[in-house]
């Protein structure tokens, strides 16, 4: 409401989810893949295996095309997208962590330069120097994860930062270390997942068997190591929040179950690949890939859902309203909005006063300000469909539910309605018009 709300008919939230997932799936590969490259190169030298080395050169080309291009551009893309959908939240993160973003940038710069030198150095550098560039790449990539991990986890578990606003407390927050371990093992497993794709293309049966076995071990071993890290992660999330994933909230529970199922399938498929070795078909590698993608997507989705109704837990709601008053928030917090009114406080509205004859128009503007960050009119989390499904079709029933948004059993992930009684009434009239026009 401080910023204009981008009106995306199918729902802006889904846009973030798509860009985030396709980025995260590659950015983690970019970290683990670095270690995979150097250890595989060392293995090839130790075993004097020129076939393995030839495959690795091919695989490093694939690695560059996936990580340096797709990973880097979608990384900018996720920033672009969150800034459009959640400018207030993005602004907060940038202001709190600008130096950390800067630190991450330095590691990323080294990472990118090292990746290109590693690839173009195959024919140019001696073995020792070439491996050195590989290690530089991996260490820089992992340090990049080390830095960005603090900012990502801060959003779900800001911890003591909420009390003292000390940036180190926000960075090394309660889920920082479990998440770092979990994401590290995930990235090493993904290195094996991607390698299985290029391994399956190999014609030479002996080489194919060797690469498939080696890559499968990366998936299997790291999937096992990720389990205690994942458990530690879940134990670091406040119990009340984690309760959503354990049954209170259907969407979170489904995501949590999907993580387990997808990871299990990825493990089983990778194990079958290990057994089949030289007979591994490309389709099996793709099944491992898809199951791993589903694991990562569900994990990211679960993290997003658990954070609801906040964009920064305990600080800012998903609709950019501060949950408590802050110095300099210009009244964009829940208590002040309840007292002063949303329409009189927000920047981007036409209707400042509510009368009998402009109820629906005012309600439409309130919907855009307070609801559209998560709901849409006809798209993702379509508000008309949701209200009909809950059999809330009359204005009095809708008005009643607006008063207890944050207390609805099985979906207590909504921010409370912010605004005056008159504004709540206007929103109820607009929502009623939506339900009735679609029925």
């Amino acid at each position, binding site marked *: 409401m*401080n*910023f*204009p*709300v*981008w*009106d*995306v*008919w199918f729902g802006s939230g889904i846009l973030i989810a798509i860009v985030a997932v396709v980025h995260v799936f590659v950015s983690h590969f970019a970290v683990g893949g670095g270690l995979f490259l150097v250890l595989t190169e060392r293995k090839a030298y130790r075993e004097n295996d*020129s076939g393995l*080395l030839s495959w690795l050169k091919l695989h490093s*080309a694939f690695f560059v*095309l996936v990580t340096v*291009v797709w990973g*880097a*551009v*979608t990384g*900018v893309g996720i*920033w*672009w997208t969150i*800034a*459009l959908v959640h*400018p*207030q939240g*993005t*602004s*907060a993160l*940038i*202001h*709190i962590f*600008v*130096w*950390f*973003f*800067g630190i991450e*940038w*330095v*590691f*990323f*710069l*080294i990472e990118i*330069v090292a990746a*290109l030198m590693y690839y*173009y*150095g195959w*024919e*140019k*550098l*001696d*073995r020792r*120097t070439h491996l050195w*560039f590989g290690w530089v790449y991996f260490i820089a990539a992992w340090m990049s994860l080390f830095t960005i991990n603090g900012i990502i986890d801060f959003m779900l578990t800001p911890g003591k930062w909420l009390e003292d606003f000390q*940036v*180190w407390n926000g960075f090394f927050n309660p889920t920082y270390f479990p998440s770092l371990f979990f994401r590290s093992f995930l990235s090493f497993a993904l290195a094996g997942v991607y390698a299985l794709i290029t391994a399956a293309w190999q014609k030479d049966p002996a080489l194919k068997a060797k690469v498939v076995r080696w890559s499968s071990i990366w998936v299997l071993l790291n999937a096992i190591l990720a389990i205690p890290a994942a458990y530690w992660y879940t134990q670091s999330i406040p119990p009340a929040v984690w309760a959503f994933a354990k049954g209170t909230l259907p969407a979170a529970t489904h995501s949590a179950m999907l993580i387990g199922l997808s990871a299990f399938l990825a493990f089983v498929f990778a194990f079958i690949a290990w057994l089949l070795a030289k007979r591994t078909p490309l389709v099996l590698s793709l099944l491992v890939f898809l199951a791993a993608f589903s694991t990562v997507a569900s994990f990211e989705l679960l993290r997003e859902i658990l954070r609801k109704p906040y964009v920064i837990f305990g600080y800012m709601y998903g609709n950019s309203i501060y949950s408590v008053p802050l110095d*300099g*928030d*210009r009244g*964009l917090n829940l208590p002040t909005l309840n007292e002063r009114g949303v329409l009189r406080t927000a*920047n*981007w509205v*036409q209707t400042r006063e509510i009368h009998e004859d402009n109820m629906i128009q005012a309600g439409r503007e309130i919907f855009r300000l307070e609801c559209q960050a998560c709901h849409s009119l006809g798209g993702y989390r379509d508000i008309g469909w949701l209200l009909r499904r809950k059999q809330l079709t009359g204005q009095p029933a809708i008005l009643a539910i607006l008063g207890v948004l944050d207390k609805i059993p099985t979906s207590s992930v909504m921010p409370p309605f912010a605004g005056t009684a008159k504004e709540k009434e206007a929103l109820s009239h607009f929502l009623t018009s939506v339900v009735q026009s679609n029925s």
Partner: protein
Amino acid sequence: MNAQAVVPYADPTPLPAAVWLLEVLLVLGFVLHILAINGVLGATLIGLWTRWFGETPEHRRLSDSLMHSTTSLLSPAITFGIVPLLFIQVLFGNFFFTSSVLIAWPWLMVIALLLVAYYSLYIGSWWKNRASKLIDLSVFLALVFFLLIAFLFVNNMTLLITPEKWFAMYIADPTGMRLNLSEPTLIFRYAHMLLAAFGVGSLFVVALGLFHFKKEPDYGRFLIEHGGRWFIYITGLAMVAGFGFLFSLSAPFRQLFLGQSAFGTISLLLGIMLGLAAIFAISSAFQAKDPRRLAWAALILSALGVVFMAIVRDRLRDAFIAPYFHAAPLSVRYQVGPMAIFFALFILGLAFVAYMFGRFFRPERPASS
């Protein structure tokens, strides 16, 4: 509605350092980014041109080496772009986020266009059959997409500094499906930025010439002269477009650079003079027995020219948005520890990258399997 009333408030979180320091980093980041981007644009344009119209083996060799360079140039160009993106969001987030939302869909298209352009350049660089038409098509597509991306950037940057348009735009269409096409300075600004980018970018060919000169003086001289000619002609056009841009500005803003503000005027004058000096240096290099010193001078002078033009751009933005800053000054709370770590890593990181270049181009031992 009063434009001032819709400009979002600055973030309640205090700035993590003084405004001047963040602004220096913003300008520095922009200069690094734009120099690398210029290199990409220059290499793509000249690479394609010499592929199509080059008649000698040197032209063909140049074209191929430019096609191979573009991808390695684009990586740091994008990475350097993160720096100004970061600091503009800290300092002017309330302007930048808003203008971006108003043109959200075209703005988001930047990412898709960049992705396709990037992969297209890889086709141009890695495709084995160098005679394939696919290379022509993909590099041409990349060039067109770069021009579109630049156009979208100019749209956003001009909308950022004109908050008086925002509310009407948003009320007319909150879906973000529009551009800032009514902006009177748009075409001049776009033409100037683009031509200057191609001009400076063509110095990448001169830099290649310096790289080759010691071992292959004839080829090195050819590159210095070829790149130098592109630089002279396109920079000349960029200056014409630059004057067009200056005079498309309304009088109060134009006057800032024509005497009213000493800092603005001197910055612009230095920018122009450094550009002219670079042209003089490179054209003198054509006649010199050993053109290297003058070619280096042209590179350094034009890079300095870019620094002053970036300062002019910064001053212009500040002048435009000055009336819309809300009364309360931005509060500052230094994050001393993280800031010190950043600066230390920044310096060490750049030194380490330089060391990597040294190690890459001067391997300790000859290539072995």
